């Protein structure tokens, strides 16, 4: 037997970034995950279980009734941000795993980023600029607390 010599491993590349984004992403999935368990189970319970009729009871008046209370506005905004960022980061992980072509991978991850930003802005505006009694709507579509038109 001849003595084999094994090259010393290359020294690790020094990260140019001072922030380890992958670590914070990993932690975010776990932190947001715990919060989402509570937020989503309560969301499902109030919308599908607690009321008479489940999904059949959901209409514009139901949403207006919930968002008359700032508690549910904050709740739904938290749901929107935590869930969409959790979901798109999970999709990014899956895309990184299966898309071998680097150019295509970057395009898909960019599409995930852009769609998430658009939906976060849209959803936040919808919750916080919501008007429960818009002019011009049929009175039968509006919640009972709206003044008669």
């Amino acid at each position: 037997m001849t003595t084999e010599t094994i090259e010393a491993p290359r020294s690790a590349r020094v990260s140019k970034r001072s922030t380890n984004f992958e670590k914070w992403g990993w932690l975010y999935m776990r932190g947001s995950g715990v919060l989402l368990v509570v937020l989503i189970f309560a969301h499902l319970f109030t919308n599908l279980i607690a009321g008479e009729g489940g999904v059949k009871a959901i209409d514009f008046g139901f949403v207006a009734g919930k968002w008359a209370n700032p508690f549910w506005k904050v709740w739904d905004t938290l749901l929107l941000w935590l869930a969409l960022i959790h979901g798109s980061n999970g999709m990014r992980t899956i895309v990184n795993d299966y898309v071998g072509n680097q150019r295509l991978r970057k395009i898909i991850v960019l599409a995930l980023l852009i769609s998430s930003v658009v939906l976060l802005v849209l959803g936040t505006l919808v919750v916080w600029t919501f008007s429960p009694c818009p002019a011009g709507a049929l009175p039968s579509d509006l919640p009972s607390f709206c003044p008669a038109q």
Partner: protein
Amino acid sequence: MAEQTGVLTGSPAPKIPAPRPGRVQGTLYRGREGMWSWVLHRITGVSIYFFLLVHILDTALVRVSPAAYNAVIGTYKTPIMGLGETALVAAIGFHALNGLRIILIDFWGNGTKHQKLMFWIVIALWIILLIGFVPRQLMNVFSE
């Protein structure tokens, strides 16, 4: 856990026994609770993500008009969508419970040791959750 016994320089080639034929158990991640929980976590996660995209857009219709929102939500009040909603809640339930299992594996000292047991606890809690949800959901969906 296999111990590191090989010395890299000067030692004779270590004898590695051929793998036993048939089912190799306990040494492989593949095909066991660990793999299937991972597969289900991905499938449920992707499904929930695409529902979430649709759900943000349908809710955004409250800002268009009450009639537009009611028209789209009306399409959810059909038996097929009701069954889809049941599957969605089942997917969310599994993803949530298995997500808590992943957190325990990552942060609890004995988590890795008990990951298989925790998988079956996840399945048990998931079934209990569905026993609570599915009958009420189906009564709502199929009643007039």
